């Protein structure tokens, strides 16, 4: 089934540890996104990539890094996790064309708890 997969589904992590959240899409979309979702705050954009080889900062990028080596994969890394990074993380992709609004397809999410 075409779509977006995320791994792991959930994770409990000790503060200070490094963690990479994985995201893979098979729709050949050029744009990919990472959001975090916190109660009462909705979805906030962490980082995005409009095409393979390029990335950009979103609304809340501090403490996170991304890479886009190819079209399909967009991993999110927490270099040294802190409790405030406890959240549900969603990866999304879209067939982005400059000048046109785009539909984002979301993955099932990763629930991360940092203790």
């Amino acid at each position, binding site marked *: 089934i075409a779509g*977006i997969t995320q791994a792991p589904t959930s994770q409990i992590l000790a503060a200070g540890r490094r963690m990479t959240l994985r995201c893979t899409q098979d729709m050949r979309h050029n744009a990919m*996104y990472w*959001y975090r979702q916190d109660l*009462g*705050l*909705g*979805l*906030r*954009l962490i980082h*995005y990539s409009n095409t393979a080889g390029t990335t950009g900062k*979103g*609304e809340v990028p501090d403490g996170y890094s991304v890479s886009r080596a190819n079209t399909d994969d967009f991993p999110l890394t927490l270099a040294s996790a802190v409790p405030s990074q406890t959240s549900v993380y*969603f990866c*999304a992709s879209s067939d*982005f*064309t*400059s*000048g*046109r*609004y*785009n*539909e*984002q*397809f*979301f*993955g*099932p*999410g990763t629930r991360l708890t940092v203790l």
Partner: protein
Amino acid sequence: TQLLEQSPQFLSIQEGENLTVYCNSSSVFSSLQWYRQEPGEGPVLLVTVVTGGEVKKLKRLTFQFGDARKDSSLHITAAQPGDTGLYLCAGERYYGQNFVFGPGTRLSVLP
């Protein structure tokens, strides 16, 4: 401060009732999207509105974009338990740019 506000935050109604949820901002958007999210899943796009004053219908759901493109509403007629979920609006500030999301309205439709 949220760029997009949604109201009400929570709504619990009986099956068959009508309801309206709102998405408001002081900013102008080039387009606005509505998503529905069910527990344990990612959001799924319902509709995109682009033109000020535009009205779109999706079965029992009616979406309207404000004339000034600063706000939007979602009206559900004869709500059903299957409508239960978190409804999110997302505004695009400039064409081709990233969307900003509102905090959502959590709807519960009781049988």
